[in-house]
Structures are given as structure tokens and as C-alpha cells.
């Protein structure tokens, strides 16, 4: 089912949670609402579900106005961050709940319910837990059951609120792949909320980057990562080094930028060399640490003592390294991305560079 959101706003007391959002989601799309906490992504998801009503604007499902329909009528599957499984019911009863509460006319028979529940349990690969209680399952299992329960009512839209937020890294990774496959199999329009850019990039077909109640950019993972529309999107997606403006005649001169501009450089785009060249920036090695296949090097600018993070592949590091604390190097900033002085969110910036001005 396709969803259109036209100029939707939501205010909680004086806090503008969602501000004039326009968004069109085609049928079968897999969408990530990505943003820092407080950006309005969960509120937007709850507005789509009907768990909140907008102060203004329209929400259309397949071009029909659903703005004032209640949760029950919307036929959405909703998966909560903390699962919200009913503690006093077995897993079987939890999944069957949506079918059992239907009016008698539309309620499937006991056999049909049983068949459906076992099909769903098979889908989420947890057939053996049917008679257990939620408290007897692990976090990852509970989240899969929550998903099976949401799917039991044959929703046309699946909404997931930070679905893996409460799980450990390994389980999260497994469930990402699994959910991605499930979406391919079932092709239900799916929208999930996350603050983890890696999760969004890895899973979604479309990423909606949100900040302060507004949509900053909509696009494929490739688009938002490679061609960020503004400084916020660039700095939110992945690690960055920030370069603030200085009193300068031209916009850019090597690693120096003029006032009113801000530049970002991803760690892997910082090119290090032991020999000085045109436009290179003299720096000093501050800390070197290896993370698997790559090596992260923190370097200190000699002109203003701020730290920059550089990342090299292990091979490259072997070629030009090794480096020790205090070594003199030269950094090259050719890949720097420059933005006009706007859309900057201080909180989202890495701590090591946030103090630069």
C-alpha cells in the first residue's frame, strides 16, 4: 500500500515534534526514517500508525484520506522497540491475538488460527516456542515474535519503531539480514525508525533523513551517502572531521576555509604523507589504534591543535607506516566537502572536532 503524507505537523505542548512533513512512499518500499533522537522520526511513524493524530496535514493510504481513521481501521502492523508482547499470554496466544479479537463474522475458525500461527512461527523460525511465555525468550526471539504477531493480521503496511535498538550487536546484525530477506519475500510496504545510520544504509531501499521535525533529504542509501544535500546529512551519515571557517580571502585554500563555510572530510579521505606537498597541512601523530582491517590515526593540527581522525587500510598503513606518537606528517584535504554556513547541528558532531572555532 502506498502512503502519502501531505504537510503533516504535530506539536506536543510547545514542542514541535513533526513540522510540515511531505513524503510519498510507494507500495512495497522499504523505508528507513533516520535521525538523531528528538528529530521526530518516531512521532512520524506513530502518526502513520494512527497512534497519534496530526495537528494539521493529511495522511493518505492508497490515495484515500486516512487522517482521521483510528488505529484499528488502518490495518497496520506495528512492532514496538520493547516488543510489547503480552506477558500473561503464551507465544501462541500472542500471535493469535489479532485474529481472536476480530468480530465473529470475520474471525477464522480455531483450526485456521492454529494453522496461521504455526505458519508465522515457521516464518520467524521459532516453531518450538509456541507454548512458552514471553519472559522465557531472549530479546532477539521476542522481537521476531512481535513481528510474527504484527504480521498475523495481514497488514498492508509494516511499521517498526527502532526494532533492534534493545538488542546486542551480533543479534542485531542477524536480524537485519533476516528482516531484509523477509521484506523481499513478502513485499509489504515497510517503514522503520532508526538512529543508526549503518542500519539504515544496510537495510533500506529509501532513506528519509530527519532533523528537528523536518525531512532533510530523501533518497536511496547511495544518494544520501554520496550526495548529501546539506551539512547535517553529511555529518550524520558516517564519521566526519569538521573544518570551520577562518578569516580568508578565498573560499578554500588547502585545509583552510573561509568564514561562513564549513567543510567535512571523512576519515578515510584524509590522505597522509610523510613528505610535505602543496596545500598539505602539517600535523602530529597523537594516537594510533587498529580496528580489524583498518587503522585509525588521530592526528593533531599544528596550527590550531585540534584533532583530526584519519583511517587507513591495514595494507596502506604497512606501506607508509608505522607511525608513533609525536611523528610529523602531512595531511591532504583535497576531498573536503564544503557547505555554506547552515544546517549545522552541534550535537551531532564528533566530540574531537566540536570545539574547533
Amino acid at each position, binding site marked *: 500500500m502506498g502512503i502519502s503524507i501531505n504537510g503533516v505537523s504535530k506539536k506536543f505542548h510547545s514542542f514541535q515534534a513533526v513540522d510540515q512533513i511531505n513524503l510519498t512512499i510507494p507500495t512495497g518500499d522499504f523505508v528507513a526514517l533516520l535521525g538523531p533522537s528528538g528529530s521526530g522520526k518516531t512521532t512520524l511513524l506513530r502518526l502513520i*500508525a494512527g*497512534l497519534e493524530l496530526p495537528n494539521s496535514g493529511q495522511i493518505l493510504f492508497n490515495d484515500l484520506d486516512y487522517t482521521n481513521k*483510528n*488505529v*484499528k481501521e488502518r490495518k*497496520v*502492523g*506495528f512492532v*514496538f522497540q*520493547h516488543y*510489547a508482547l*503480552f*506477558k*500473561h499470554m503464551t507465544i501462541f496466544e500472542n500471535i493469535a*491475538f*489479532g485474529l481472536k*479479537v*476480530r468480530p465473529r463474522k470475520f474471525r477464522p475458525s480455531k483450526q485456521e488460527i492454529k494453522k496461521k500461527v504455526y505458519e508465522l512461527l515457521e516464518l520467524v523460525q521459532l516453531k518450538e516456542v509456541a507454548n*512458552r*511465555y514471553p*519472559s*522465557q525468550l531472549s530479546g532477539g526471539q521476542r522481537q521476531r515474535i512481535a513481528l510474527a*504477531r*504484527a504480521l*498475523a*493480521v495481514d497488514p498492508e503496511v509494516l511499521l517498526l519503531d527502532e526494532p533492534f535498538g534493545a538488542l546486542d550487536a551480533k543479534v542485531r546484525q542477524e536480524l537485519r539480514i533476516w528482516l531484509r530477506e523477509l521484506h523481499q519475500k513478502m513485499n509489504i510496504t515497510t517503514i522503520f525508525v532508526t538512529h543508526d545510520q549503518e542500519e539504515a544504509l544496510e537495510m533500506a531501499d529509501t532513506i528519509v533523513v530527519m532533523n528537528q521535525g523536518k525531512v532533510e533529504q530523501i533518497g536511496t542509501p547511495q544518494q544520501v551517502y554520496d550526495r548529501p544535500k546539506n551539512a547535517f546529512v553529511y555529518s550524520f551519515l558516517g564519521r566526519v572531521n569538521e573544518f570551520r571557517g577562518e578569516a580568508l580571502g578565498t573560499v578554500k585554500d588547502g585545509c583552510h576555509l573561509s568564514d561562513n563555510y564549513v567543510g567535512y572530510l571523512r576519515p578515510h579521505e584524509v590522505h597522509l604523507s610523510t613528505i610535505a606537498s602543496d596545500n598539505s597541512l602539517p600535523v602530529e601523530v597523537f594516537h594510533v589504534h587498529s580496528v580489524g582491517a583498518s587503522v585509525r590515526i588521530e592526528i593533531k593540527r599544528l596550527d590550531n591543535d585540534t584533532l583530526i581522525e584519519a583511517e587507513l587500510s591495514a595494507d596502506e598503513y604497512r606501506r607508509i607506516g608505522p607511525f608513533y606518537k609525536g611523528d610529523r606528517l602531512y595531511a591532504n584535504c583535497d576531498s573536503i566537502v564544503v557547505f555554506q554556513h547552515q544546517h549545522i547541528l552541534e550535537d551531532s558532531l564528533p566530540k574531537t572536532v566540536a570545539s574547533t572555532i
Partner: protein
Amino acid sequence: MRNTSKRHLLPGFGISMGFTMVYLSLIVLIPISVLFLKASTLSLSDFWQTVSDERVIASFKVTFSSSLIAALVNTVFGTLIAWVLVRYHFWGKRVVDALVDLPFALPTAVAGIALTAIYAPNGWIGQFFEPLGIKIAFSQLGITIALIFIGLPFVVRSVQPVLQDFDAQYEEAASTLGANSFQIFMKIILPAITPALLTGFALAFARALGEYGSVVFISGNMPMKTEIVPLLIITKLEQFDYAGAAAIATVMLLISFLLLFLINFWQWKQAKKHRAVKGV
């Protein structure tokens, strides 16, 4: 020397347990055992004769049935009051909240007199029921009303905090699955508050069984009809029949204990159902 081989993570087990035992003994166990001792001065046949007396049996029936009905009524309406106090915001909510505890604070005799005054055949409310042939004061209905009055706070106060802590996400989850408000209440909220409901019910019931002050005014104390057990015990005491009073009290105590034990057992089973069972 102190044995330090067995060490508890939290210190003070010995002293706190010892204190608990002494305290419970002084306050509860010793007085109750004296009651049993007194009752045991009767021979078995005398004991049986005292407690199986027609008038005594009738009073048991009146006491237990009135208390049960009062506790049930309080369970239903107490839940409603708790619901209103937790879920809605209205002007004067704090006053209503405070009002709930009033039956605890009022001397029960005052409550009894006030209730009698309004429910008597010529009272404010009683006068409307009199033409319909319904007698409230001086009947078992009156006793039940008095018991409802004094038991009101128990259910409200035990359900209120549970309802307050109940996470809205469960209701939201149920509504996204298509449940209507009634289904959400019956299938999601009610099971969650059931243990608290049972606690409130048990407390209100126990309180009603022992109630004396408010009932004696409104009941009319007609033997075989509106005489409650506590009254019968007082009557026996006034006739210096201490052993007889103790015998009736003993039976009352045993039945009450059994009923409360059953309620607790049921509640324990309910609570066990949702408790985390790890490593299964």
C-alpha cells in the same frame, strides 16, 4: 564465637528476622494462641454445641455473605474509581483522591450512625425505597452497605498504583492488532491488574468480616436475621461466657484464615503465570 562461614550478601539477616519473629509473636501469634487456649477450656461437645447453635450459624451466614457481597461490589466499583483517578484529569481530582481514604479515618460508629440516618425508612435515601417495599437499614442490605463503605479504600488503593505503572504500549499494541476498547480492557488490562484486584478484594473481605462498629447501628441486630458474628461475640462476653465467645471467634478465625489463604494461593498462581522463568 560467631560463625562466619555462612555469609549473606545483605547483612543483618539474623537481627531483622529475629525482630520480625518477636514482633509478630507479640502482636499476632500470642493473642491468637490465647484465644485458642481459652476455647480449649470447653469440652469438645460443649464447643460443638456453642458453635452449631442455630443463632450462631445464622450469624455466620449473615457475616460471610454480607462481607463477600460487599467485597465483590468494592472490587468492581473500586476498580472503576481507580481507573477514573488514574486515566482522567478533571477539576477536583485531588479532593476525590483524598475522599477515598475517608472511610479509614472516620470512627466506624460515626459511619454507622450516619448511614443509618440516611438509609432508615424515614431517612434521606431510605424514604424513596420504603414505598417500593425495600428496607435498607435494619436489614442485610444495610449491613452490606456499611461493609461496602468501610472496605472502599482497599481495592482503590491496591489497583491504583498498578494501573498507574501500566505501560501504554500494551494497549497500543492491542489496538494496532484490531482490538476494541472493551477487548483491550478485558484481555490486556484486567489480567495485569488481577493480582492487585485479588489483594484489594482479600483486604476488603477480611476487614468486613471483623467489622463491628458501623454494622451494629444499621443492622438492627435481630437474632437469626441481622445479627453479625462480632456482635454475638460481644453479647457472649457481656454474659461472662468467655469460653463461648472464644469458641465462636476460633471458628470465625479458622474460616477467615482458610478463605484468605485460598485467595492468596490463587493470587500467587496468577502472579507466577507472568513471572520470568529463566533457563527453561
